[in-house]
C-alpha cells in the first residue's frame, strides 16, 4: 500500500517537473526572439561603419575560435553534470559543474578582454552603428552567460550545503537547458558576426 503511494507521489512530482521544464522552455524560446531582434538590428546596421573599422579589420578569428571551443566544451561538460545528476552522484555533479563554471568563466574573460581592447583602440559602441549593434548583440549574450555563471555557483553551493535533493535535480535541469541554449545562440553569433564579418559581408 505504501509502495503505491510513493509511486504515485513520484509520478506527481515528475509531472510537476515536466510542467516547470515546459514553462522554462517557453521562456527560452521568447529569449530567442529577443536575440533574433538584436540579430536583425545587426544585419541592418553592420555596414554602417561611419568611416571606422569594419569587422574584417577588428575581429581576430583564432581568438574567437578559442572562445567558441571553450563555450562548446562547457556545454558538453554541463551535459555530463546532468548525467551524473540522474545517477544521484553528488561528487561527479559538483566536479562537472565546476569544470563547466571554469570554462564559462574563461569564455567570459576572453570576451571582456576582447571588448576592453576594442574600446581602448577607440572602437567602442559610440564609434558607429555597426559597433553599437555589435556590442549590444554580443554583450547581451555575455550578460546571459554572466547570469548563468551566478546561477551555477548558487546551485553548486546549495548542493554542497544541503546535499543532492530532488529539487536540485529540477534546478539543474533548467540550468542545463539555459546553458545549452546559450551555446546555440553563440553558433549564430560566431557564424553571422565573426565569420561573415571576416569575409566582409
Amino acid at each position, binding site marked *: 500500500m505504501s509502495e503505491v503511494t510513493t509511486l504515485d507521489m513520484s509520478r506527481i512530482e515528475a509531472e510537476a517537473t515536466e510542467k516547470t521544464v515546459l514553462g522554462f522552455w517557453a521562456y527560452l524560446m521568447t529569449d530567442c526572439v529577443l536575440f*533574433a531582434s538584436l540579430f536583425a538590428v545587426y*544585419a541592418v546596421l553592420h555596414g554602417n561603419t561611419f568611416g571606422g573599422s569594419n569587422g574584417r579589420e577588428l575581429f581576430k*578569428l583564432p581568438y574567437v575560435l578559442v572562445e567558441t571551443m571553450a563555450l*562548446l566544451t562547457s556545454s*558538453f561538460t554541463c551535459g555530463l553534470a546532468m*548525467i551524473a545528476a540522474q545517477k544521484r552522484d553528488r561528487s561527479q555533479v559538483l566536479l562537472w559543474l565546476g569544470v563547466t563554471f571554469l570554462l564559462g568563466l574563461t569564455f567570459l574573460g576572453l570576451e571582456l578582454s576582447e571588448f576592453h581592447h576594442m574600446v581602448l583602440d577607440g572602437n567602442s559602441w559610440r564609434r558607429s552603428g555597426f559597433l553599437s549593434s555589435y556590442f549590444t548583440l554580443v554583450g547581451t549574450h555575455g550578460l546571459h552567460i554572466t547570469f548563468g555563471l551566478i546561477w551555477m555557483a548558487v546551485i553548486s553551493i546549495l548542493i554542497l550545503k544541503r546535499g543532492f535533493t530532488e529539487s536540485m535535480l529540477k534546478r539543474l535541469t533548467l540550468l542545463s537547458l539555459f546553458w545549452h541554449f546559450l551555446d546555440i545562440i553563440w553558433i549564430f553569433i560566431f*557564424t553571422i558576426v565573426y565569420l561573415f564579418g571576416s569575409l566582409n559581408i
Partner: protein
Amino acid sequence: MSPKVSEHNAHPLSLGKYISGFLGSILLTMTAYMLVTHGSANKAVVVGVLATLAVVQFVVQMVFFLHVGDERKPRWKLLVMFLMLGVVLILVGGSIWVMNDLNYRMMDSPQQMQKYLKSQDSL
C-alpha cells in the same frame, strides 16, 4: 533516492548522445572556420555553405543537447519551438527585406538623392 523516480523519466540521458553532439559540433565549427581562413571559393557560395553549417549545428545541438523530439506526445516543446522559428523568420527576414528596400529607394547618399529629385523636376 530510489531508482523508481528515475524510471519515470521518459528519456534517460545517454553519454553517447552528448559525445556525438559534442564531436559533431566541433567538426561543424572547424569546417566553417577553415572555410573562411583557408578557402578561396566564391564568396556567395561560402556564405551559403556557412549558413547551412550553422543551421545543421543548430539541429545537432537541439537534438543531442536539448533532446528536442524526445518528449512524449503531446509535443508542446516542439510546437513552441516551431512558433519561435516562425516569429524569428518573420522578424529577421522582414527587417532585412524592409531596410534593404529602403536603402535601395533612398539610394546611396543625399547628393544622389538630390540629383534624382532634380532630374524628376520635383525640386
